[in-house]
């Protein structure tokens, strides 16, 4: 079997195949970065919605809580199918990549909202009170006092989530989005040895996620001693 794999190597590592795989890898990276960035922005909004005070905002609070609690508990693949069939049902024309992006944002915003909530909860109410009596507005307190402290709690799990998410985007291959895993399937159905193809895919996933987890670990080390601050 090893001979077969070795004999395939020159035929497999052609310019065309490599471009095909790297493009797919780019799509995986794009889905992750855009998904997590948008998810973070939406996650902030969701967390604000959950923190609105008083009775008037209750519907918004409930909706945001329902959203977060629901989508954190549904398998990613199921969400992708729901988004796909909902969009088809309404006869919108959205590309498969667009469907995958929407699904990714739905799930990452729910997870990010939880990560952000934990970050903000780690900041004691007295920090808000102290700023308030010094005439800081709520947004000024957020910007100068709360966010700089909450980042230390938010960033490490956010990176862990992003690294996990790189792997989860492979599920978009089930919809037919040509990302890294799907590209592997295409090449292996073209007759290349599955071990060779998916071995290469594995290396590419590693190349994507390893630097990110190193960055996350570095941040965690850098921030950990100052968490008590």
């Amino acid at each position, binding site marked *: 079997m090893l001979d077969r794999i070795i004999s395939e190597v020159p035929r497999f590592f052609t310019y065309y195949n490599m471009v095909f795989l790297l493009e797919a890898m780019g799509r995986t990276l794009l889905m992750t970065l855009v998904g997590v960035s948008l998810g973070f922005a939406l996650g902030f909004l969701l967390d604000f919605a959950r923190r609105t005070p008083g009775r008037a905002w209750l519907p918004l609070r409930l909706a945001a809580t329902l959203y977060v609690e629901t989508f954190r508990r549904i398998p990613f693949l199921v969400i992708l199918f729901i988004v796909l069939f909902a969009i088809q049902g309404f006869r919108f024309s959205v590309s498969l990549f667009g469907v995958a992006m929407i699904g990714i944002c739905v799930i990452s915003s729910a997870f990010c909202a939880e990560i952000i909530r934990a970050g903000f909860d780690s900041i004691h109410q007295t920090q808000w*009170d102290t700023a308030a*009596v010094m005439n800081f507005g709520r947004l000024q307190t957020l910007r*100068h*006092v709360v966010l*700089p402290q909450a980042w230390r709690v938010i960033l490490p799990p956010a990176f862990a989530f992003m690294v996990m998410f790189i792997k989860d985007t492979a599920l978009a291959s089930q919809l037919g989005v040509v990302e890294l895993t799907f590209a592997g399937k295409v090449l292996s159905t073209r007759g290349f040895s599955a071990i060779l193809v998916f071995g290469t895919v594995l290396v590419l996933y590693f190349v994507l996620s390893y630097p990110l987890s190193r960055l996350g670990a570095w941040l965690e080390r850098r921030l950990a001693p100052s968490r008590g601050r």
Partner: protein
Amino acid sequence: MPHLAVADLTATYPGTDKPVLRDVSLQVEKGEIVSLIGPSGSGKSTLLRVLVGLLPPNSGSVRIDGEAVDYTSRRSLKNARDRLAIVFQQYNLFQNMTAMGNVTIAPIRIKGWRRPEVEADAARLLAKVGLADKHASYPDQLSGGQQQRVAIARALALKPEILLLDEVTSALDPELVGEVLDTIRVLAADGMTMLIVSHEMGFVREVSSRVVMMDQGSIVETGPPAQVFDAPETLRAREFVSRILRH
């Protein structure tokens, strides 16, 4: 006209029925140091929280230089907070900033004062509280006493007219209490108007112009320290004094 006048102030914590302050009235003249004493839960700290707008009063009035504070009006509250400053028991320094950052952030960002002047003033204040060499230290690199002195410098940097001190030595190790009390003595000598909540009875007796004793949300006795400590008029005050003097 009193610098600070509180009349018939009543307040209740949200979600509870029992008032924590009942018809509290007191006056602080300019340059006077009034100390609030009394058992835990008597409403001393709550009174300070109401004054700075962290707990809305149910009824009663607060006047600063004769001007009534409307705690439901954002502008009136902001104005009151410009004139009052509070230092908390747990210092509550902003953990993400150095000592210098803590002292300068509000003057620069909130008041919009010029940075060079603010920093010069902050350096002077930090020197005054004995921390000239700690500008660049973060709160977790400072002892409790040092953090509390930074908190006092931070409050002073906003140039308040009246300083409220909420049990500023209660969270400190005994050997660090002295350094904070020394700082307050310096302020007293400067003529700063202060309303102090304290359990340091020797200190209260020494610096206060007047002592106000509270119990169960009400004022039970008020007078010069010698009178309140040595010859209290009410039964409840006598009981409290005899209890604390036994320690």
